[in-house]
């Protein structure tokens, strides 16, 4: 039984495990993202054959759907998560040799969390959860834009962050509107 929640839990867990791993083998940290994303790719491809017949809906925490968060793995969602895993896998192979400057360990963590956020956005079936994953995606990309700490990067990150944070209230308002619709 392949569960779609593995697509989110495994990269997240391996990103959290990177500082622990760096204690023992600091030079081998850069191989964690390709492994995790390769795993994601395999899981997504295994799921794809199954969801073509009927979509897999898993609830998290074991309650009925309006009272908990559920993941909806339809054909489009699984296709997109497979594409994300494939592109992420290729980029992480390229990054093995390319990322040399700066705190590289932090780069690998941020990169894995970015792809976790992207996978969560395509798989989730809950509006507030979508917002949370979108925030994971946004914040890790702000940090990655400013990663090198040079003039252009910092400037662009400031612009990006303020533009992104400005639209937060409208996201909240949409949520409220949805609430009031459900209330009626």
């Amino acid at each position, binding site marked *: 039984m392949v569960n779609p929640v593995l697509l989110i839990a495994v990269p997240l867990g391996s990103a959290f495990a990177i500082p622990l791993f760096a204690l023992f083998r600091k030079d081998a940290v850069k191989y964690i993202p390709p492994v995790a994303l390769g795993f994601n790719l395999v899981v997504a491809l295994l799921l794809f054959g199954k969801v073509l017949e009927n979509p897999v809906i898993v609830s998290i925490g074991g309650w009925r759907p309006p009272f908990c968060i559920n993941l909806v793995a339809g054909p489009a969602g699984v296709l997109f998560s497979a594409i994300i895993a494939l592109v992420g896998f290729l980029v992480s192979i390229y990054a093995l040799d390319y990322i040399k400057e700066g705190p590289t360990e932090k780069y690998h963590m941020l990169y894995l969390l970015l792809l976790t956020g992207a996978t969560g956005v395509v798989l989730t079936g809950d509006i507030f959860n979508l917002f949370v994953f979108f925030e994971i995606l946004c*914040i890790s990309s702000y*940090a990655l834009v400013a990663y090198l700490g040079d*003039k252009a990067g910092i*400037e662009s990150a*400031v612009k990006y*962050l303020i533009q992104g*944070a400005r639209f*937060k209230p409208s996201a909240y308002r949409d949520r*409220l509107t949805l609430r009031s619709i459900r209330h009626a």
Partner: protein
Amino acid sequence: MSFLDNYIYYIGAFGLILIGLYTILVKHNLIKVIIGLGILDTGVNLFLISVGYITKGTAPIFSRPGIDPEHMVDPVPQALVLTAIVIGVAILALALSLAIRLYQHYGTLNLRKIREQKW
């Protein structure tokens, strides 16, 4: 009195949101803009909590036996706001670190003096 009863919390939240947005849009100093973001966050949180309130409600905690569940306030907005506060401080800290680096590069925080930041 019923006007105050009904709308005072909404007025407060509304005012905070508008003042925060005004600060973000008009001020030139980056740290001032970030303070505006913080005020905006507080306003949105107050707004969500006051939406969940019911008149003469009690907190959604079964702290003593015999509490009437009918009069408890809505727990869902409280849960969302609890996490939103932590997210708010995370974004503020990241923005402040970017402000510090910007100051190290340009020696100023005035967004009008930095060529790429004008609008």
